């Protein structure tokens, strides 16, 4: 399994020269049906040791204030790195955050992070979780001191960066070596798009794909199933969460959120920025009859998206082709 996924990554890789599959070297490769990434590891050279350290930190619960919460507690691999069954994030001291945890994959193609796009670099994305009283509830000083005094961390930093020096920059860079490598590109949809032999949509999936292209792609644009813009899809007349306007200060951004990816949507329930919907049926019914005329409602949705029962089933069948089991089960990304 491990070998297979690496071999697949290898097969898609654009620059194959520096990699040999035998070594199981951690690589970042651009899938054939994806554009060039935003994050290129230019200032953060990817290495096996850097990735391994980043992964260890990602799953290290002792980094949090009460030593109970790691990144992996909210970003769970079996849920495509979101938090299963939690409307909003659940952190230290049983504290509930205000937003639904986004899944983590294909982050190297994102220019901005968080539902409101407030964070601008994948490397600095974990800082909020680390310091938020409601997430990990700690501070960088404490984490740096803990790592300096806790074997085998000094050695791991040495292997990854050539020195036992530990600082926030190296912590964040190693975590980015883990999070940016998380690429999900082996769903049935991807294989159909890449015309891999013997793989094709069923008639229901194909009908769903056609409906999707007609009704959804203007926002959930291929191949990421988001155009990374901020919009309101009419969840509330008045949004309780400011959304994008919290960042821009512009009234016309009130209640707008980043269009979320739909990859692995089968596993990322609950849905929407506040996790209000538990099933895809509820989501589709929202587009069918539930869209509210919020002030900043996207014009494309002013009449909702009428969908009959058959169409809903077909769209659901298509959405399930976005599930990437190789990604979800890839032991390379699991807590070891």
């Amino acid at each position: 399994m491990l070998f297979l996924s690496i071999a697949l990554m290898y097969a898609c890789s654009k620059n194959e020269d520096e990699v040999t599959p035998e070594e199981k070297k951690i690589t970042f490769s651009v899938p054939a049906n994806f554009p060039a990434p935003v994050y290129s590891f230019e200032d953060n050279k990817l290495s096996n040791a850097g990735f391994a350290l980043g992964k260890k930190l990602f799953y290290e619960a002792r980094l949090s204030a009460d030593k109970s919460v790691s990144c992996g507690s909210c970003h769970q691999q079996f849920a495509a790195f979101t938090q299963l069954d939690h409307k909003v994030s659940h952190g230290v001291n049983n504290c509930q955050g205000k937003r639904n945890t986004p899944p983590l994959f294909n982050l190297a193609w994102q220019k901005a992070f968080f539902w409101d796009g407030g964070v601008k670099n994948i490397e600095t994305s974990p800082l909020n979780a680390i310091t938020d009283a409601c997430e990990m509830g700690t501070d960088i000083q404490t984490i740096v001191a803990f790592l300096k005094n806790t074997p085998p961390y000094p050695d791991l930093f040495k292997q990854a960066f050539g020195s036992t020096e530990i600082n926030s920059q190296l912590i964040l860079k190693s975590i980015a070596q883990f999070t940016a490598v998380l690429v999900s590109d082996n769903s049935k949809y991807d294989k159909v798009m890449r015309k891999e032999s013997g793989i094709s949509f069923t008639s229901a999936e194909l009908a769903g794909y056609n409906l999707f292209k007609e009704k959804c792609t203007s926002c959930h644009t291929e191949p990421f199933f988001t155009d990374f813009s901020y919009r309101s899809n009419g969840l509330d007349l008045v949004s309780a969460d400011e959304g994008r306007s919290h960042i821009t200060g512009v009234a016309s951004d009130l209640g707008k959120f980043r269009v979320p990816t739909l990859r692995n949507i089968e596993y990322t329930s609950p849905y929407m920025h506040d996790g209000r919907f538990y099933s895809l049926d509820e989501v589709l019914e929202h587009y069918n009859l539930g869209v509210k005329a919020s002030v900043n409602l996207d014009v494309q949705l002013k009449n909702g998206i009428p969908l009959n029962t058959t169409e809903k089933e077909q769209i659901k069948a298509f959405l399930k082709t976005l599930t990437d089991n190789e990604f979800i089960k890839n032991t390379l990304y699991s807590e070891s």
Partner: protein
Amino acid sequence: MKLSQYFLALLCPIILLSSCKKNTDEVAADTQSTFSIEFENQVNGSPLVLNTKTYKNAKGEDFKINVFKYYVSNIKLSKADGTTYLIPESYFLIDASKAESTNITLKDVPTGDYTKIEYTIGVDYARNFAGAQTGALDPINGMFWTWNSGYIFVKLEGTSPQSTATGNTLTFHIGGVIDPNNTIRTFTTEINAANPLRVRTDGKPNMHFKVNAAALFTGKTDVSFATLNMTMGGANSVIVANNYANGLFRLDHIHN
């Protein structure tokens, strides 16, 4: 004809580039040395004493300061002939609670007589959105917003009886680089040509700046703590940045 036009078009930037190159070569003389800058934190002419001393803003309102920190970056020196030298990777965080941070050392500066100094109050656009940084820009310094990427350029926290905030607090976190709320400001000051900054192999001059924390609250707009006592980016931060753009720093003297 067409070809030669292209050729010229190609040549032009080459000429420009090479002429620029020449300039820097001239500035980048063979020898380099060091100079230092001291930032003497004050409030309206009296020394800044954190936590205990009471000051008055331009509206006559009392206030105390608990925290006063600011970035000085991208320090650029000019000579009388107009040539300039940008000190690479010059990012400094001055923190009134850390005496050692108020005297900064600039190394490997080409020797010469400099008659102008210019720097950013804050951090340039690119670094606000860059990956993880270290040194002065390390988020450990408490000057980085984790929910809305970017640095706090100037941070003043304190109290005022006039403040309507809980605990009568003052929270001025100035930052943000996107128009219309861009708070990056550049400070420039000429240096008296009779006593320029003389960077020499056998001399390490010290520039002495006086820094007036009260400049946040006057200059273009007199701030009343009754109406403005908390800002973390946005339009109110711009008001404060416009105030301190010219008033925060004053070059007092140079020890050559």
